[in-house]
């Protein structure tokens, strides 16, 4: 973790610096970064704003009023006094880590935000920064769910490939219902084990959008935001709005909870506000907005898209592949993706298909396209590390496996953090993959599975080429777009890294 700290003492010549040294030392020993601003008599160099931005938490080891405290607003903190930091820096650090893990938001954050900034420009800039921070909070909590769920599903597919003969294990494994596992689990059956992996992963995936939405709302409104945020995310899933819907519900829920928790209510009601009234009202409002206002147009649009696709069938296959590919890459499991996917899967169920039926080619194009986004992000984080946050780079490693397994959701953390650049690159690359797959006439008889169903793919060299071409194109576009305007979050992180490196070099 990364911490910033402020130390000060009455005389400003001894404890201020001892505390700083002890905290930095404790940080190094425990593998965390601690950058200290010593507000002492020997002058104080203000912390680099980038370092503050990148910090997970703040340590106040100060016996005097902390100068410019509003710089640290909104971050979890511990306030221990200077002596404690000198005597027991590792303990103070541990408390700070606990505060960050508990996500204890600064009680003063709301109060500090209220005074309106002097100029309009400032106001816009700070709102932009805050929106990005809210978004990143949601994404950072979602990433472990993507990795854990996605890898479990992929492992389930992998194991299923061994457990079933004939190469269609990845298909069969999804047909074993949970009730079956509960009532007659057989520990000697590889098939059952693969189903356990798959179902557990699928359950973890069920949390993606609620966690994204819930923690965006939490970042906006603190604790009161959690309930409406999670409920809104789940509602977004229920109406098929996917992660883009989850972004919307996160911001709506956070805004509502923030607003309601600031109502001026009679003293008697105040006690039950955070536990009952705020979660209840904000959840209800988010539910109404999502189910009634957002749900219907999405359902209608999905129906129209489906009808339109069905009308297109039989026309130019390469164009159809490009179109389906673009849809697959657009919202990564959201409504548009789902229409394309359902269109392909429904086709598979047609009676009496010949071996080279168009339906198989459509399925292959859809799967090739759906593998592109996570693979492209994995490739981009490998070849251009500097364009991505630490969390994204970690997620990039998991994305290789997720992409190879046709789990498009592996790219959601990237898309949620930087929607338009990632979605543009994903749409183009996926579209190319769909078209190339069609051009090669690759066919697929399984509805999912990625590389784990390769035996079920006809002309699978053509299929692989399609995936690789799409991946490289998508990767090149996202690198170009991100290079043109680097993200502030990434820059802040790198500034912090550089400062740390310099500090380490000086110390050595």
């Amino acid at each position, binding site marked *: 973790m990364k911490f910033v700290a402020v130390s000060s003492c*009455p005389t400003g*010549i001894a404890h201020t610096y001892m505390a700083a040294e002890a905290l930095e*030392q404790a940080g190094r020993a425990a593998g965390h970064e601690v950058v200290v601003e010593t507000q*002492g008599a020997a002058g104080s160099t203000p912390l680099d704003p980038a370092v503050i931005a990148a910090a997970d938490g703040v340590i106040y080891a100060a*016996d005097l009023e902390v100068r410019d405290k509003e710089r640290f607003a909104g971050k979890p903190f511990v306030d221990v006094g200077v002596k404690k930091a*000198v005597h027991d820096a590792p303990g103070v650090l541990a408390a700070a880590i606990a505060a960050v893990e508990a996500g204890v938001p600064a009680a003063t954050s709301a109060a500090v935000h209220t005074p309106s900034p002097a100029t309009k420009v400032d106001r816009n800039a700070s709102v932009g920064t805050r929106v990005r921070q809210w978004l990143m909070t949601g994404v950072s909590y979602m990433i472990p769910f993507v990795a854990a769920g996605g890898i479990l599903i992929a492992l389930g597919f992998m194991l299923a490939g061994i457990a079933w003969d004939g190469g269609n294990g990845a298909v069969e494994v999804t047909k074993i219902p949970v009730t079956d596992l509960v009532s007659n689990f057989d520990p000697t059956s590889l098939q059952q084990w693969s189903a356990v992996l798959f179902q557990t992963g699928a359950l973890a995936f069920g949390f993606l959008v609620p966690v994204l939405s819930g923690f965006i709302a939490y970042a906006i409104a603190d604790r009161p935001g959690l309930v409406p945020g999670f409920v809104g995310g789940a509602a977004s899933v229920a109406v098929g709005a996917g992660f883009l819907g989850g972004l919307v519900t996160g911001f709506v829920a956070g805004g509502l909870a923030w607003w309601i928790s600031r109502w001026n209510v009679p003293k008697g009601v105040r006690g039950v506000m955070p536990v009952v009234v705020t979660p209840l009202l904000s959840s209800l409002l988010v539910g109404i907005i999502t189910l009634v206002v957002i749900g219907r147009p999405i359902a209608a649009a999905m129906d129209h898209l489906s009808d339109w696709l069905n009308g297109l069938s039989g026309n130019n296959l390469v164009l159809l592949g490009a179109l389906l590919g673009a849809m697959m890459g657009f919202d990564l499991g959201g409504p548009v993706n789902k229409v394309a996917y359902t269109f392909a899967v429904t086709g598979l169920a047609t009676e009496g298909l010949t071996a080279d039926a168009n339906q198989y080619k459509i399925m292959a194009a859809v799967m090739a396209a759906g593998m592109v986004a996570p693979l492209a992000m994995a490739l981009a984080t490998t070849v251009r590390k500097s364009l991505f946050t630490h969390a994204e780079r970690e997620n990039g490693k998991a994305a290789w496996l997720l992409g190879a397994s046709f789990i498009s959701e592996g790219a959601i953390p990237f898309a949620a953090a930087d929607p338009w650049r990632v979605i543009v690159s994903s749409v183009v690359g996926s579209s190319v993959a769909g078209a190339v797959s069609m051009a090669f006439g690759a066919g697929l008889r399984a509805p999912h599975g990625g590389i784990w169903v390769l035996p079920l793919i006809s002309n699978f060299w053509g299929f692989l080429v399609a995936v690789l071409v799409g991946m490289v194109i998508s990767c090149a576009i996202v690198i170009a777009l991100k290079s043109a305007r680097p993200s502030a979050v990434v820059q802040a992180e790198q500034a912090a890294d550089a400062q740390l490196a310099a500090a380490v070099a000086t110390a050595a």
Partner: protein
Amino acid sequence: MSTPLITADLVAVDLAAADRDDATRHLIGLLAAAGRVTDADGFHADVRAREAQMATGMPGGIGLPHARSEHVTAPSLAIGRLTQGVDWGAPDGPATLVFLIAAPATGEGDHLQILAALARRLVHESFTTSLREAPDAATVAEIVTREVVPS
């Protein structure tokens, strides 16, 4: 650096002191003799005032009396190794190694960097241990001069 932070005559390696005040008083005497403190009583009062705010004893048997005072002419350090520990308000027992830090009241920033560097070194056990184990006053002063360099 016109005046070094410490010299051998500011170190008392076998200091017999009855209590905190006595030890402090003795170290102030060394500073006064070296011309770094103009008014020993005045400076002692400043140190006492600081000590009254919050005892400066540290874990590991260290006392750290200090003050910024108008009676101080240059940032200075006097070190006393006590033959018998005296209570310095530390939670884990009496102090046997005492650092008296004297800072001039006027002068900001760069001037006091040396004291900041000293404070940072004090946190390192290897530093204080080497001072405890040094054979004589000259070696103590030499270790401080070598290790305490303003960043």
